């Protein structure tokens, strides 16, 4: 039975993306999880519910060192558990971990995977979503980062210990992490919006030059749809919204179920960040806007009228 190690960075509750990795790991065989510190019983129960057989934690907390503690733990856990595959989220933080882990384990690393079959052949999106490849590692171990919204979750998500099941065994590793590293000396929380993270959101409402700097109507629509706010480079460069919201080739690539493009013309670079969305809706004053060529529904009109009317109608349908 092949073992898959899932490297998570939570010690509290599982997020949707974590659950996707665990479901994928179980589809390949036995699942192990590596966590940055000892988990509480609630998290252990959730992991048991996902069929995790063993949990790996470091003897000492990660401290203030960037990236390398997670690399050292994952390497130790992969070796101890005999992992054939190591799965991580597709975030920048996890990609840095995956890169260095690949060197430590002499393992091929595949990023941006959207699927992984039982022969360990990965499907991945390349060239800014323009092409799809199937690829595999030629090394004994594969390290892969998996895009959010790639794995179907069961309708009933496990949140407690299944009847008759045991909590997974917790293995404590004395990890050697002595390589030079950057240290975190300060943290500033970005203002919390209460909305999902852009990279993981199932709905993204994005604005560009055509918003004129007013994201209010977009935020109302995002909130009624439970979505995140994104922005084109033009809107970020204008200082209307923080750079963390940028969608595009040099910003974040998103693959939501629904992408609502508002006042964005849809130049090549912006399209590159969103063309793998399942459904695209565009609202634009300009009937020549390139985004209308790829939208499943295009509304030619003023977003300041169209969006509030849509929000009002959706609310009325909900009663």
């Amino acid at each position, binding site marked *: 039975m092949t073992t898959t190690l899932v490297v998570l960075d939570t010690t509290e509750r599982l997020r949707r993306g974590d659950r996707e990795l665990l479901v994928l790991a179980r589809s390949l065989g036995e699942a192990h999880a590596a966590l940055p510190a000892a988990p509480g019983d609630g998290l252990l129960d959730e992991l048991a519910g996902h069929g995790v057989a063993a949990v790996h934690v470091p003897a000492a907390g990660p401290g203030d060192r960037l990236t390398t503690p997670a690399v050292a733990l994952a390497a130790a856990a992969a070796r101890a558990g005999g992992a054939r595959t190591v799965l991580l989220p597709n975030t920048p933080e996890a990609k840095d971990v995956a*890169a260095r882990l690949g060197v430590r384990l002499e393992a091929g690393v595949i990023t941006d995977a959207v699927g992984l079959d039982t022969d360990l052949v990965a499907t991945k999106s390349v060239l800014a979503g323009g092409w799809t490849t199937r690829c595999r590692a030629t090394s004994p171990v594969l390290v892969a980062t998996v895009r959010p919204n790639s794995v179907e979750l069961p309708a009933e998500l496990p949140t407690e210990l299944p009847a008759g099941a045991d909590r997974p065994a917790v293995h404590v590793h004395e990890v050697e992490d002595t390589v030079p*590293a950057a240290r975190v000396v300060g943290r500033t929380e970005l203002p919390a919006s209460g909305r999902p993270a852009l990279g993981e959101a199932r709905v993204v409402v994005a604005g560009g030059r055509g918003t004129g700097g007013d994201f209010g109507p977009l935020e109302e629509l995002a909130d009624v*749809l439970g979505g995140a706010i994104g922005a084109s480079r033009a809107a970020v460069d204008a200082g209307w919204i923080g750079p963390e919201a940028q969608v595009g080739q040099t910003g974040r690539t998103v693959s939501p179920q629904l992408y609502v493009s508002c006042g964005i013309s849809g130049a090549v670079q912006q399209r590159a960040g969103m063309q793998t969305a399942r459904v695209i809706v565009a609202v634009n004053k300009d009937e020549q806007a390139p985004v209308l060529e790829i939208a499943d529904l295009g509304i030619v009109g003023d977003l300041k009228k169209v969006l509030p009317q849509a929000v009002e109608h959706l609310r009325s349908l909900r009663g």
Partner: protein
Amino acid sequence: MNRPLTLVVPVKHVPDAQGERVLSGDPPVLERGPGILSELDEYALEAALQLVEASGGAEAGHRVLALTVGPADAAAALKRALQLGADAGVHVLDDALAGSDAWVTARVLAAAVERIAEEESRPVDLVLTGMASTDGETSLVPGQLADRLGLAHVGFASSLALAEDGATLTATRHTGTEVLELVAPLPALVAVTDRANTPRYPNFKAIMAAKKKPVRTWSAADLGLGPGDVGLAGSLTRVLEAVPRPPRTAGEVVVDEGEGGIRLAEFLVARKLV
């Protein structure tokens, strides 16, 4: 800062993302037409130039070297880097390198950085990279290079500066929810995002000056790497198949005559997106 610093900026020659990009062959590889310097590398080069300028400039003995691994036409990326302000170029040029994955690329770059330190007779203090190449897009090479060279590593930095002591650097990094302030000892590797700066354009004088700047060319064997270490043979990942994404087609386009928002809402309901 009184110690002369040596900075290395790996740069990549890539097909222009504005044009059509095609994967072909068995195994599928990216067709190489006329290319450009990967846009994200310009931020790394700009960061290197700004650090040098803030520390006394070339007069203080600092050196910025642009390093590329690629076929003969990758010389164009080096030329651009020299025009932008790098002092010298290094081109690792070898037909055996074709098809190299991130694992091999990091291995070749690591060997080249070590060779640069030997030839310059002083250690490399800082390696600056872009956050990803605009063709491979894996973001793996910076971390793999740092791990191989045993360098302190900051990925996805949105700003950086050298500390007064000349022995450390400070950087910031945005995560989805917070901004991290970081300190790293030199020597270090920093991968910068496109938030780090605004890259300059070369002027006529810089373009002329670049023609006189030296470029060293090394083969894989010059770096102690055999044919089995590089290219497809040395890679740990294989592409089995590549297919273009079916082009998205325009759906319905509705001109708003007062009911556009309702139409939008009904579409979302019909597609079960609410």
